[in-house]
């Protein structure tokens, strides 16, 4: 099941490889079908998922069964390393409350991304092959329970992303692409070392061998006392935690490692921005929750305050930067930074409310930001500019577009009744309830105001009022006395066309529904989060050594 959902896109990619590059439509349709099949599978998994099982660590007896679900576990590589026992790498997939929401999100966003890739004309074949490779890698990251496998998928994302930004991107794309690539690689090379170190420090309770299994790593009693990352070598555990954290924080992206994001977003084509903001950023925080924190709980407990402060910086700083942007897409990019700050803050709370809020925020940010970038793409396709000041009064001429934008914008500023609010609310609830992060939460609340400020301001400048004199479109009064506008060299429908609606409406529905009744998604994660909080709680650490 999981293998299928992971490798469907690759299969599609191989099929496309066989299709002659002139058959653009076939290529698109094949990819779309694969993505839709992925969505179906995601729904099936969702239906078959038992929200009661906790996940995170193995069930009693050290076996993942009974704790994780849809487990697929095959011995992949088993090497004899002589004195170091045998190197066991497993093909080990499974979902728990952390990953299932992300799986659903990934399937959804990739499908929508393919829809929004429809207009792309340049090297369609190569584009969709890379795209499918990317979506396999993303999905794989979320379901992999073997650190080695996770790392493989993690690195596998870089190359397609590099090319997708670099070939189909904007004018300054080379710069953005290589910057993205180097940043993320810089983050992940340390992960490699930590991974090896962990391997030598952890014993699978069942087989008695060293293992890469994240499930085994997640429970501290599986660690060898005097191993390099065992409980005794305190210093190296701190170092490992920090470098891992940096590795994931770059993906999040967390201040001050965030500078690749605006460039990447501004240069990337719309669908790639959607993927990037919708899924890739989540991998950073997902990695923290899956790997970084549960493997080093005592270090995590020691660094709560720092993480919280960094989250607060992200929130406020991102909001301020967004406030200053002229380029709409850049503003949205900074808003992503700000919103991922809420996730960090929620994680720093280290209690169930906060962490549920954080995970839920990851999901919601995925959907909402996808909407934002799609909407930016819509106007960019028409006007070939994203300068906020080049518009004005659009609400009169593109009412449907304006309506959807209003939903997305208000969702992004956390209006109650839309999903973004609930996650942010519980992030704050959690952060405030935790002694460590209480004052940080108080400061971060300002983010709500500034978030509203830049979003409403851009909304006003683009959609309200009247046409600006130097606007990117022409105004003409039709025979019926009504005013019309038209963009230079835009032949399509002025307001949202069907394809765009098909992309946007489902997202809007999800955003609204989950804003009114979050349990369908939140219910999936609570038990896992509770387990995670338990694993992270200091009590466990004192029991450790």
């Amino acid at each position: 099941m999981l293998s299928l959902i992971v490798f469907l896109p690759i299969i599609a990619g191989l099929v496309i490889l066989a299709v002659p590059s002139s058959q653009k439509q076939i290529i698109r349709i094949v990819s779309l079908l694969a993505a839709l099949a992925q969505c179906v599978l995601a729904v099936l998994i969702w239906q078959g998922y038992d929200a009661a099982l906790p996940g995170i660590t193995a069930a009693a007896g050290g076996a993942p069964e009974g704790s994780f679900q849809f487990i697929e576990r095959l011995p992949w590589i088993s090497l004899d390393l002589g004195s170091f026992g045998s190197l066991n790498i497993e093909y080990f997939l499974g979902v728990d409350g952390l990953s299932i929401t992300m799986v659903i999100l990934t399937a959804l966003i990739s499908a929508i991304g393919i829809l929004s890739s429809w207009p792309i004309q340049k090297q369609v074949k190569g584009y969709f092959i890379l795209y499918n490779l990317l979506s396999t890698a993303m999905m794989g990251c979320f379901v992999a329970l073997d650190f080695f496998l996770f790392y493989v998928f993690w690195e596998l994302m870089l190359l397609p992303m590099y090319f997708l930004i670099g070939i189909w991107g904007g004018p300054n794309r080379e710069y953005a692409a290589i910057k993205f690539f180097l940043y993320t690689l810089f983050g992940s090379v340390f992960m490699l070392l930590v991974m090896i170190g962990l391997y030598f420090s952890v014993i699978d309770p069942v087989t008695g061998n060293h293992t890469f299994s994240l499930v085994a790593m997640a429970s501290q009693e599986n660690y060898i006392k005097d191993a390099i990352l065992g409980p005794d070598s305190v210093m190296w555990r701190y170092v490992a935690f920090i470098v891992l954290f940096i590795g994931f924080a770059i993906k999040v992206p967390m201040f001050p490692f965030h500078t690749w994001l605006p460039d990447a977003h501004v240069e990337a084509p719309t669908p790639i921005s959607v993927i990037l903001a919708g899924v890739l950023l989540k991998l950073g925080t997902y990695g923290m929750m899956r790997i970084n924190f549960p493997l080093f709980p005592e270090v995590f407990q020691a660094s709560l305050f720092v993480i919280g402060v960094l989250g607060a910086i992200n929130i406020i700083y991102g909001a301020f930067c967004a406030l200053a942007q002229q380029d709409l897409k850049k503003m949205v990019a900074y808003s992503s930074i700000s919103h991922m700050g809420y996730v960090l803050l929620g994680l720093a709370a280290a209690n169930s409310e906060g962490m549920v809020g954080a995970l839920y925020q990851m999901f919601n940010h995925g959907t909402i930001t996808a909407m934002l970038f799609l909407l930016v793409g819509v106007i960019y396709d028409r006007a070939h500019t994203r300068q906020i000041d080049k518009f004005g009064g659009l609400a009169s001429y593109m009412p449907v577009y304006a309506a959807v934008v209003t939903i997305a914008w208000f969702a992004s500023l956390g209006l109650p009744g839309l999903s973004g609010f609930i996650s942010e609310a519980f992030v704050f609830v959690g952060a405030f309830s935790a002694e460590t992060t209480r004052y940080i939460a108080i400061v971060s609340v300002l983010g709500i105001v500034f978030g509203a400020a830049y979003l409403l301001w851009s909304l006003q400048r683009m959609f309200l009022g009247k046409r600006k004199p130097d606007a990117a479109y022409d105004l003409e009064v039709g025979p019926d006395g009504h005013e019309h506008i038209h963009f230079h060299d835009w032949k399509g429908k002025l307001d949202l066309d069907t394809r765009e609606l098909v992309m946007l409406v489902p997202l809007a529905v999800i955003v609204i529904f989950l804003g009114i009744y979050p349990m369908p998604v939140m219910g999936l994660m609570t038990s896992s989060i509770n387990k995670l909080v338990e694993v992270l709680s200091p009590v466990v650490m004192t029991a450790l050594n």
Partner: protein
Amino acid sequence: MHSLIQISIAVLLLPLLSFVILIFFNKRLPRRGDFVGVGILGATFALSFYIFWSVVVQSYDPSFRIAWDFTWIDFGNVPGVGPLQIKMGIVIDNLTAIMLAMVTLISFLVHLYSTGYMAGDPRYGRFFAYLGIFTFSMLGIVLSDNLFSIYIFWELVGLSSYLLIGFYFEKDTAADAQKKAFLANRVGDIGMWLGILILYSQFHTFNYQEIFQNLADGKFDMSEAWLTAAGILLFMGCVGKSAQFPLHVWLPDAMEGPTPVSALIHAATMVAAGVYFVARIFVLLTVDALHVIAFIGAITAFMAATIAITQNDIKRVLAYSTVSQLGYMVLGLGVGAYSAALFHLVTHAFFKACLFLGSGAIIHAMHHEQDMRWMGGLRKHMPWTFATFTLATLALAGLPLTSGFMSKDAILAGAIGFANAEGGGIYYIIPFLGFFSAMLTAFYMGRQIWLVFFGESRTHLKPADDHHHGHDAHGSHGHDDHHEEVHGVHEVAWNMRAPLVILAALSIFAVYSPDPLDGAKGWFMKMIPTPETVVGSASGKAEHGTSSANHNAAHLLAEAVPAVGHSAETDAHHEGVASEVIHEEDSHAAGHGDGHGPEFSDPRQAAIAHEAHDAHKLAIVISSVMVVLGISLALIVYVFRFVDPDRTARAIRPLYLFSFNKWYWDEIYQATFIKGSIVISKVLSWFDANVVDGIVNGAGALTRRVGFATGGFDKYVVDGAVNFTAFFFNTSGAVLKKLQTGKVQTYVVLLMLAVIVYFIYYFTQLIY
């Protein structure tokens, strides 16, 4: 589930239904579907009046209370907390019932009125949709039984207010106003949110009753200061929503919205929600918090009144008077005159709605002329409007025989009582400001009546450009006819007249109390008794600390019992318990026949109540005098013209300008907060683009220059190494590559050099 609960759910959801229907299908429906909105609201009102009837009139019980809730979010078994569920629910008590009836009635009337006022607007259907979602959110606030859902609906009314203020979004002023309103409210909301967080972090629940229960049981283990902070922060929500000082600036601008909206949202209901919320959380406000609230209210009442006297825009005068009246209510709550404040909330809702709708009628008739200086003599043309408007004005000014008189008087009495109980001194400022504002109110309302209805029409005096501007402002409104002279100013149609009449009728004392001089004798203040505080007061703690606390607990338990175990099955025994409570309360009432307020165990509250009761007569006298003073002043200035207003204005120009420019609050905020954050954001984004990126990329610019010098430097290399040593790597690369001279002999030399160097190194290692 109790039948009333079911009905209330219907009441809550019907307006939402109207919104959904209208937002999607208004273009396809005949008449843009206005009848849907009006009809649904009519039904809603009918239902909520049934609730009102059966709660307030039939079971005539001050402590009536039924509650119902359901699990909204289930966190499962949370480590350290245990099973944790976030519940959403509905609570119905007298206050709720009264608010329901009031909100739905006014909303219904406004819907009806709008069918006339908004006729011909291009977005006619959408207007009713917005009204629908507003009504929904407002009812949500009224019905919520917990802080979380009240916060949700709180922001939703903010949204609908945002949408309606910006209904004519082509106007930049409107667009600015809507943004301003939303942001000002957000500022208030974050305070409110923090307050909620403080309480949640202690009790892991959002439900009022559970929070109060825990407080009464002394489970609050943070310092007293946090509790006060919680109170004040929660009050910040009210400051934003009810346009209290210092966040009052958005309300006058909100008059950019259509006038029915001003009547419904910005006069009668939404702005009163703040007061309603403070009343809901009244029992957890500490003494310090109450003092803050009282002063804020007094300042607001006074400031707004002073501003109102110089405004020329008919709606702005009313807007400031609204702010001022809201100040009264907040003041009332602050001084502990709980019932009086809520009483004023309701009475004010009716007469202020009436005033706004009246002004709307005038504006409609005047073809969207809003400046009172160019009105005059309208009483001949619009008798109905004149009559109702005047009646409402009297109520607002607080003349006897009106509802406004009773409520305002009760508040002022409370203020005096409070000042006495607190031991005078600085606290006398509050009643003083209250009375002074009462005079000002009378004055500016007199001025308004005179300018609008009496004298001769002054339309022709209006400068052309100003006139043109007046039209241009409403150009998008579909009325493009230019009038130099106001022809055919005529009374409005029935659908706009009926609401005026009904609302005016509701401003008469008889509706609320048999005794025109004492609201306390009326059903309203009997049904809304001042609740017992759960946090005690300084004096109370000082004198009999624990015992009083216990007593509080016991007393509150009695109140709270019906709220415990909110589940459908136990409704039956709800009534049982409720009835017992009734007996207890009756015994209280019997205790002192004239039935002002229940007996308080908290000495401070008791003292205030007592003092207030004694101050009642005094208050009546003073306020009447003040009102008469104000009105006569208005007559002197505007009717008999003993004093020329313009000359006076010139005489006291600084004061005049100070008032005319609204105490310069907008300018101050513009200069400080708005400019400030813009500048900060600019600075930070520069910082981001240059410093952060620069550092992370290894001093980008510098490296580029060096690289340029060394020739063919590739800018990617700067970001290439993505770490602080990028600079080092590239320059070192530039240096190292020079070693490769291409001369084989150099290579040999370097080779030998390396060997020798290492050998010497090893040698030294060896001998030392």
